[in-house]
């Protein structure tokens, strides 16, 4: 989101065009236009007094390089060793840029069937953990059966991670897809990768999913989700009252609480200065390798 805001107008328009081009396959296109308008409104008053540091934008791309913010568990030497090991692993395998909401294909070598590999395609619904413990969850519906698989990002049995469609969704976690109608997370296992043109910002998919009737796995109504359209239909009066009671509007003003959840900019820039050059080199060399791939047109989602 913030990536989109900070890019120039041309790029914003590019992104808008890209989204419009794809809208034929979206389920609900209604809130899309309003979303873009909000983006531009926010962008105009955002005058930055501090100099804008582009190296810090890596935090969206490689969030696992930032350590756990809990000061009880931090140690600069351990973090350094961990980052060095992560870079060593990254030199062996291409771990691409992806976000929650992107569609990935992961190939692992299968210890249970010797000499074979196992490939799974799905939408990334969650990314968590930092350092070498970073992991992500893929979800798909295969043969009308919802399946989720959790992978570790730096697991040496992973042979390749391929991004089939690079995009973001409206929420940070898509766990509500477990309670959504199955067509929202059904992806064919032989999906073709869609390649974004060079330099375009990562598009945000404004699709809003429909939830199945209750019972749900969690109380989605209390989580202020943007990517769910029909949450109000399923609520009773009791639920609305309880939602109001549980709201914590003061939490966004709790400056220290937010501070304790993040890594300050000064420490981040140190980390990125340490790892950025190597990451950039790897990226460039990988790009040279994959020049041959041609741009394919996006396929319809609900074919």
């Amino acid at each position, binding site marked *: 989101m913030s990536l989109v805001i900070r890019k120039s107008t041309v790029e914003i328009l590019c992104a808008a065009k890209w989204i419009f081009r794809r809208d034929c396959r979206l389920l609900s296109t209604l809130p899309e236009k309003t979303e873009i308008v909000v983006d531009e409104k926010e962008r105009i008053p955002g005058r930055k007094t501090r100099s804008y540091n582009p190296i810090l934008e890596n935090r969206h791309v490689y969030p696992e390089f930032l350590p756990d913010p809990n000061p009880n568990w931090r140690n600069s030497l351990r973090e350094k060793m961990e980052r060095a090991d992560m870079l060593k692993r990254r030199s062996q395998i291409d771990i691409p840029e992806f976000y929650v909401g992107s569609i990935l294909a992961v190939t692992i070598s299968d210890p*249970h069937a010797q000499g074979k590999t196992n490939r799974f395609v799905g939408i990334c619904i969650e990314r968590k953990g930092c350092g070498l413990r970073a992991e992500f969850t893929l979800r798909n519906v*295969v043969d009308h*059966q919802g399946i989720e*698989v*959790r992978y570790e990002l730096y697991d040496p049995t992973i042979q390749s991670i391929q991004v089939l469609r690079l995009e973001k969704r409206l929420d940070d976690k898509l766990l509500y897809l477990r309670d959504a109608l199955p067509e929202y997370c059904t992806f064919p296992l032989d999906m073709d990768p869609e390649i974004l043109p060079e330099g375009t910002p990562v598009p945000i998919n404004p699709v809003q999913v429909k939830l*199945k009737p209750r019972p749900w796995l969690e109380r989605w109504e209390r989580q202020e989700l943007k990517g769910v359209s029909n949450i109000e239909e399923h609520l009773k009066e009791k639920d609305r009252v309880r939602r109001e009671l549980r709201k914590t509007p003061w939490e966004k003003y709790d400056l220290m609480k937010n501070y304790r959840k993040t890594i300050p900019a000064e420490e981040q820039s140190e980390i990125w200065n340490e790892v950025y050059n190597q990451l950039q080199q790897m990226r460039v060399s990988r790009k040279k390798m994959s020049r041959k791939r041609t741009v394919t047109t996006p396929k319809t989602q609900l074919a």
Partner: protein
Amino acid sequence: MFRSLINKLIPVQSCGFHTTSCLNEVQLLTRLRVVDNSEIGKRAMAEGKPPKVICVYNKKRVGYIGDRVLVAIKGQKKKGILVGLKQTQKVKVPKFDSNNVVLIDDNGTPLGTRIHVPIPTILRTILKEKTHAKGADYTKLLGIATRFV
């Protein structure tokens, strides 16, 4: 055509299961979903009377992936193997949206001839370990699977 009818019914069916997280583990009286095409299993699922666990054959009495269970299905006692769980699984092991079971007889031979949902590959190792030379051979189940994840 009958299968497509079942497939249409399944999303409606799965809402009938317990979906609260506290009942996510397979234990006594958990309702399961039969995923093979055995006659009794198909009919039980179509009637909306999914089988209930009446015994889990392990020490913990909580069913994990690959465990044998005894189920009550349409007034009969049948054995089955758990081939997919709702619980949080280990890394690289798939977690399913329903608790799946494949019915077998005492020798480990599946009652049906096909499994119409994906099967976790870890079952290959688990079932091989559980099979003894003279006892039941559970690896026959792997032969009728259509897809592994």
